[in-house]
């Protein structure tokens, strides 16, 4: 043993270990951090919480998701329950009906004035007011506002908040069930796209060289194909149905994600910590998923959120051109397309799905923007 300081007496240097005693074991006097340590996600969430539009849109999204889950259970109707004698009913909402809106009334035009007396055609008490009186070829004709529910003999306690469709199905039940399906399609197609994109981009970005060149060219060619044409072709091939829509949306949907991941891999794969891990003998697959991929989580989440409204849009679009899910299952797009056929007669059948899809898309877009600002403050304000 060599000691640097030779002035220390021998017996002090050779005190046996058991003679030592801790001065303080209970109260360690180290100063504690007053603040919590803040990680990347916590920081991002805090930033997001400060942005009002983001939080409002988050609440709207959550509210719509909850409504989509529970409303169809409580309306008392089933989404495929038909009642052809009560078709195309106007909206009637308990409570609000007293205010004169959503009271189940409708103006019937061009009725013979004499028929108003006929209780078979106009049951007792259904006429609210006569809007317009005129003569057509000598016969007195009227436009009359009626309580359409009484007019058709709908039971007193039966309410259809959003009205019914051309088969007498309750529109509210169908709308929220449709929302559930549209959201499911959107989530699953986006998740699938992200998974494919991550794997493709990771391989292409990590290995680089010839592999990368081939994969990038392939993606580029695929990306050049018009998106709509590809989706329609694959829908024709797969036939109608939820699963087909999800698959059709994945044909070219993953390319953007893979590009993003590839760029991120190029950025991070040359870092020292990756080199260190590789020197220690870490396998490629571990390097890709454990060491490099976590760096891309922020942009990835943002990208996925931005893709969701796109997928909702695509679903409605496909429904419009007759390639939606198979009936009687509803989706927002199917309801919009059905409503469009009777837009001028029964605008309520288009109005409610239109409001819901608009609200959903606006909320998702705003939320995605807020999320991007929160996860990547350096990009704030850029579009």
């Amino acid at each position, binding site marked *: 043993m060599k000691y640097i300081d030779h002035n220390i007496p021998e017996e002090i240097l050779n005190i046996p270990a058991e003679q030592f005693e801790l001065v303080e074991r209970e109260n360690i006097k180290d100063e504690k951090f007053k603040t919590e340590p803040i990680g990347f996600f916590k920081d991002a969430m805090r930033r997001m919480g400060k942005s009002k539009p983001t939080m409002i849109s988050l609440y709207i999204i959550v509210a719509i998701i909850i409504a989509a889950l529970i409303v169809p259970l409580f309306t008392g109707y089933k989404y495929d329950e038909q009642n052809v004698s009560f078709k195309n009913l106007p909206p009637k909402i308990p409570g609000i009906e007293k205010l004169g809106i959503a009271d189940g009334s409708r103006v019937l035009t061009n009725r013979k004035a004499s028929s108003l007396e006929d209780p078979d055609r106009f049951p007792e008490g259904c006429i609210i007011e006569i809007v317009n009186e005129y003569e057509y070829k000598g016969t007195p004709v009227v436009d009359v506002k009626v309580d359409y529910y009484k007019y058709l003999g709908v039971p007193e306690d039966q309410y259809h908040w959003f009205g019914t469709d051309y088969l007498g199905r309750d529109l509210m039940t169908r709308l929220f069930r449709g929302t559930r399906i549209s959201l499911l399609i959107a989530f699953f197609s986006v998740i699938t796209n992200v998974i494919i994109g991550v794997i493709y981009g990771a391989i292409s970005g990590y290995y680089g060289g010839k592999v990368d060149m081939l994969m990038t060219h392939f993606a580029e*060619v695929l990306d*050049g*194909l*018009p*998106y*709509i*044409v*590809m989706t*329609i*072709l*694959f829908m*024709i*091939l797969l036939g109608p149905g939820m699963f087909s829509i999800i698959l059709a949306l994945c044909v070219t949907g993953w390319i953007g994600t893979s590009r993003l991941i590839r760029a991120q891999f190029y950025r991070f794969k040359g870092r020292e910590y990756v080199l260190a891990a590789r020197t220690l003998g870490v396998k490629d697959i571990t390097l890709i998923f454990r060491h490099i991929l976590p760096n891309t989580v922020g942009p990835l989440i943002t990208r996925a959120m931005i893709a969701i*409204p796109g997928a909702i*849009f695509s679903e*409605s*679009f496909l429904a*419009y*051109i*007759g*390639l939606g899910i198979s009936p009687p299952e509803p989706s927002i797009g199917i309801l*919009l397309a059905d*409503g*469009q056929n009777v*837009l*001028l007669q029964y*605008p309520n059948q*288009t109005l409610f799905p*239109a409001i819901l*899809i*608009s609200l959903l*898309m*606006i909320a*998702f*877009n*705003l939320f995605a923007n807020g999320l991007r600002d929160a996860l990547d403050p350096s990009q704030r*304000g*850029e*579009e």
Partner: protein
Amino acid sequence: MFKYILGRFGAMLLTLFLVMTLSFWIIRLMPMSIFEHPDVHPTIQKMLEEQMHLDKPMYMQYYYFIEGIITEGDFGTSVKIRPGMSAFEIIESRIPPTVLLNVVSLLFSIPMGIIVGTIAALKRGKWIDTLISFLIVICISVPSFVFASLLQYTFTFKLPWFPTLYDSAAGSFAAMMHSLTLPIIALALNPIATIARYLRGELIETLSSEYLLLARTKGLTRAQATVRHAFRNSLVPIANTIIPLITGVMGGSLVVEKMFAVPGMGGQLIDSILAGDHFLTVALLIFYSAISLCTVLIIDISYGIIDPRIRIGGRKE
């Protein structure tokens, strides 16, 4: 420059060829025979199949399909919607309304988007900027067919300013455009908002740049500095937003055409999909791809002319 155009053109042809190939294989891979129907006598079915080369092996069918398109412009024959009529003849009359609708919507939206975006950027932080930003979010989010429904109900039914449907028999061009106004607005709102949002961001950045300060210190007025210095630099990168917009407008027009009964390719495509007339569908899709790829090509080339950097480096995001 010539090399650049040639390269772009080659890429477009390759893509188009790929669309044809994919369409062919997807339609032929469908399980049932097109002429299988209880009313069709097996002999006739066989004859029809022979006539359309359906009895040959797959690769021969593929060869005939591509050869027909290239040498004779033969895109197949409609079998359900207008049986026996060549798909090309059906489509021919339907191209002009579609192209008109799409091109006008795009051409209308670019200057509108630039104006709106510029106003928002110059009045940054004022109420008008807030209002525009709010409208931009709505116009970007809400799908064009929802706008179309809304416009159709409001401006043809509640306020009868415009005809409900497209008036193909309209005497004058003005009357025709009048009946096309609503579909054009419905399609243009999204591109306007996208361009405006992009330009607003770009302009705000440029307006606070040092070279603009220099321009002002040189003695230029704010308007002069904005138009001569800020504007030009902000305008060039818009190309990257316009190309994705084309696909959006083309897709939206499929549905909007049907809503306003515009006798274009959109309505025809929906009808042929619903009727299961796959030959016609494929022909329509190929034409559709051709139109959208041509538009992309035109914009690509014109931006190659405007901005030499794109020409040399290739368009990359």
